[in-house]
């Protein structure tokens, strides 16, 4: 129906119907509001801000054409993104003004997952949550409530609230997404690293599909590299857009990336292709690495990963020859396996072995203010460090976290407490985990949708139903909110100001966070305000020593008002000049800018790396006997099953914006990719209705018969088959891939598995 009408007339229709019948709109949504209150007021000049249609946080600016709509584009001041946005970024206005978005708090009146709600005031909502949290604290202890907040801004507010309340069970979304490579960086490089794709001459890419799972800066850099004649090798079980743009596509066997990388290292070492000088000076653990990969010959591993031994050897030779302008992309997501940490460490070691570190076209260490300032002399100006308001000490928690991070023998010791192993939350609600001694009884979730994003949907829903309290803070009745007791309406990113951010790439940089383009619609409130108000209701106001976000920002910059003004006006700021420690030209530029840094320059005209790169991990050896790299074969499927894998679509983000009208109209029911030979064997034709099933779930979908996937594999886009009936456009459409996956939590990395066995039949 929405497709046949203009949005304006649809809004009119839906609100009229609601007024007449009083039942067609979901309580608390924009569609249920009086027409007069729906108008929005905003800035008609471009306001710099940050996108939130996915987690890539691209820089944008937006302007309102009053009463007519909004135009969003990339922030032209940001050179790495070139002023560009993707389809999701462009459709932000549609999220802002969606009749199905939530603009009032709602409380559950039926059973969890029944979809019966009543509107409540913010005060009623706070009172309810405060009382429930107090009850749980009295009965089981505050630590039995887990707090999950989406990366970045919301963590600041809700993790503060959690710790003030007395829970140390803090989580982000990381363990369902980037965690393994973050941990690997910390282990191998003792800090974050980035990839200089644009200048590379040779890139190996394992299913890192930046042209569909779009990060604007990566997509542009990859395209730049290709345009300048770089060779890009795509190893992906499916013919993704990345595979199509790459110089070569090799359909690797799902879940078997690690054997490929181990054979690759084996060739680099055995054929003496590695950079001996670099390895001797900057790496440690080479002998252990050499010994551990000795058995992983290309011939042996070719059988595992289904890439011919000669091809592996050729790639290793080409890669070494292209170094230092060579990148073995440590990738995002790939086909997540039980050996995620080993895989990412192994990939990163490839770049270290050929010395493609801290030079153009290779890896480089992220240079935060603290990192950068270390190389500056006394007389040089220093990169500003953002401050945090001082808060009272948090109450001490005597028991371990559910992931045991912070305990001496925790297998997840590499993980930061603010990230945590969120994939363990459902398990910890259903069972007392070993060495933990308690079960979780409450889950406070800010802008995260575990029902869609964690593997094995049934397990997550079972856990939510077992909880004493489920609070969700979101812009819509997400699939997780569907099972909540109370849902608090967040502002969309176009309606709120956020704290300033500091980060580092080749030099330190700062961001404005988000800036309000329009006034909040309805009664939605931003995270900084909700956490503060709820804390005040709970008598914990002292932990939130700021009046509003403006006051918080002022405390962040201290007396550096120039930084404040610059960030607000342009959206970003940086300090100094780009620095690549192993690049003579870059170091010379750096010294020219900061003369007293000359003392740090070595006889070769470069600067020594701050830490040894670890090709063997003594810490992992102590905790889990996994210091060296080893391949442990894993049985993903039965012999008569097909591999099932998923990946990202360019017009939908994970579990988040499938209900956006514009995006949903572009792709509402993604088909399951199946190879023509497999389809023929199963009697399936293109467009047929099919069932994809295994011991965990049965999903209904339609078939896309294509040579763009391996014969032994079926593929579906992620983020389909929504479960919340309040997401009316996306509900039930397409295959929900996470429902088919196993609930396994991988050792040491805490990641989910994204490869499983399925059978497919005609429905």
């Amino acid at each position: 129906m929405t497709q046949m009408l203009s949005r304006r007339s649809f809004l009119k229709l839906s609100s009229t119907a609601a007024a007449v019948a009083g039942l067609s709109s979901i309580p608390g949504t924009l569609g249920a509001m009086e027409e007069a209150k729906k108008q929005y007021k905003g800035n008609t000049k471009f306001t710099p801000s940050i996108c939130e249609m996915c987690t890539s946080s691209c820089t944008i600016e937006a302007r309102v054409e009053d009463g007519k709509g909004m135009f969003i584009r990339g922030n032209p001041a940001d050179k790495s993104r070139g002023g560009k946005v993707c389809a999701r970024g462009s459709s932000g206005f549609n999220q802002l003004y969606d009749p199905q978005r939530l603009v009032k708090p709602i409380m559950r009146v039926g059973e969890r997952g029944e979809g019966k709600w009543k509107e409540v005031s913010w005060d009623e909502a706070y009172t309810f949550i405060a009382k429930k949290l107090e009850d749980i604290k009295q009965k089981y202890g505050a630590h039995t409530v887990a707090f999950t907040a989406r990366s970045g801004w919301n963590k600041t507010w809700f993790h503060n609230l959690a710790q003030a309340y007395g829970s140390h069970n803090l989580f982000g979304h990381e363990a369902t997404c980037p965690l393994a490579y973050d941990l690997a960086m910390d282990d191998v490089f003792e800090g974050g690293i980035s990839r200089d794709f644009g200048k590379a001459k040779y890139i190996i890419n394992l299913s890192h599909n930046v042209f569909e799972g779009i990060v604007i800066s990566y997509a542009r850099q990859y395209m730049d590299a290709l345009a300048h004649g770089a060779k890009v090798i795509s190893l992906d079980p499916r013919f993704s857009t990345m595979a199509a743009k790459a110089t070569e596509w090799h359909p690797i066997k799902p879940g078997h990336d690690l054997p490929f990388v181990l054979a690759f290292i084996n060739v680099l070492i055995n054929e003496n292709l590695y950079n001996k000088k670099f390895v001797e000076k900057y790496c440690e653990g080479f002998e252990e690495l050499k010994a551990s990969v000795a058995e992983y010959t290309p011939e042996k591993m070719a059988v595992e990963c289904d890439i011919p031994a000669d091809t592996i050897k050729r790639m290793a030779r080409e890669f070494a020859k292209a170094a230092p302008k060579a990148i073995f992309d440590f990738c995002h997501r790939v086909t997540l396996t039980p050996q995620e940490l080993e895989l990412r460490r192994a990939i990163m070691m490839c770049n270290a072995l050929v010395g493609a570190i801290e030079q153009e076209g290779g890896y480089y260490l992220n240079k935060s203010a603290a990192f950068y300032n270390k190389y500056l002399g006394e007389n040089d100006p220093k990169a500003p460090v953002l401050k945090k308001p001082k808060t009272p000490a948090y109450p001490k928690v005597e028991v371990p976290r559910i992931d045991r991070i912070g305990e001496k023998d925790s297998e997840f010791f590499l993980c930061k407490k603010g990230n945590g192993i969120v994939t363990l939350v459902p398990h910890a609600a259903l069972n007392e985990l070993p060495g933990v001694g308690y079960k979780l009884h409450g889950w406070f979730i800010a802008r995260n949708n575990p029902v869609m994003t964690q593997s094995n949907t049934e397990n997550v829903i079972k856990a939510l139903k077992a909880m004493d309290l489920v609070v969700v803070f979101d812009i819509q009745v997400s699939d997780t909110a569907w099972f909540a007791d109370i849902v608090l309406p967040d502002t969309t990113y176009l309606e709120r100001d956020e704290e300033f951010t500091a980060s580092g790439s080749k030099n330190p940089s700062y961001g404005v966070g988000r800036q309000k383009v329009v006034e909040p619609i309805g009664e939605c409130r931003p995270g900084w305000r909700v956490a503060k108000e709820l804390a005040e209701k709970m008598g914990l106001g002292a932990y939130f020593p700021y009046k509003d976000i403006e006051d918080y920002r002022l405390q962040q910059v201290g007396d550096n008002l120039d930084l404040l003004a610059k960030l607000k006006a342009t959206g970003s700021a940086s300090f100094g000049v780009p620095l690549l420690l192993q690049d003579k030209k870059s170091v010379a530029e750096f010294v020219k800018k900061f003369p007293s840094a000359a003392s740090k320059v070595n006889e070769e005209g470069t600067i020594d790396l701050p830490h040894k790169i670890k090709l063997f991990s003594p810490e992992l050896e102590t905790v889990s006997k996994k210091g060296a790299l080893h391949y442990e074969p894993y049985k993903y499927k039965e012999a008569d099953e097909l591999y099932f894998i998923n990946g990202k679509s360019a017009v939908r983000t994970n579990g988040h914006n499938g209900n956006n009208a514009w995006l949903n109209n572009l792709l509402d029911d993604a088909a399951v990719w199946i190879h023509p030979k497999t389809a023929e064997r199963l009697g399936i034709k293109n467009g047929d209705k099919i069932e994809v099933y295994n011991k965990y779930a049965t999903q209904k979908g339609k078939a896309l018969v294509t040579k763009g996937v391996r014969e032994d594999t079926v593929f579906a886009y992620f983020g389909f088959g929504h479960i919340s009936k309040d997401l009316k456009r996306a509900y039930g459409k397409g295959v929900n891939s996470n429902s088919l996956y196993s609930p396994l939590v991988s050792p040491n990395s805490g990641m989910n598995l994204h490869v499983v066995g399925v059978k497919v039949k005609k429905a």
Partner: protein
Amino acid sequence: MVHDNNLCIGCQACNVACRSENKIPDSVYRLQVWVKQEEYPNGSLGYEYHRQSCVHCENTPCVSVCPTKASHVNEDGIVLVDNDLCVGCLYCVAACPYQARYVHPVTKAPDKCTFCHESRLSRGEEPACVTVCPTEALVFGDLLDPKSKINKVLSERVTYRQKERLGTKPKMYIVPNHKGGINS
């Protein structure tokens, strides 16, 4: 305008930006990118990206058939529709060999890509699709200016135009996919 198939990733950023900037009703579109998987003669696979939109012909069937001069070419060579002059005969919709026109559900007049003439060009901005394109697959500019970026691109890359045999002389140039065997 130039659409480079090698740089296009089919992400639909252009499609949505156009919808957002020009307030296109959900049921219709001025611009889409159609993505098609191809198997090339050498057995390799590829994606072809077709920009489905007005190609702004120089020899314009839609203008030729218009009885009221509502369909016209402006001084910049952009094909436009003047709603006030339109009587809704829809000859233009039928005459367009590129299926670029649709009937606007509210105005009932034919509508199509205007290169954002009214919303952006008048403010000195590029069309919305060009502004947002993540990989710069679209290049826009003045074909009459020999120094313009678009003329530089046209001199460097091999291009073709859709249905050239019809003699419509579109001002939409396409750089074919190298993977298809044509190198430029």
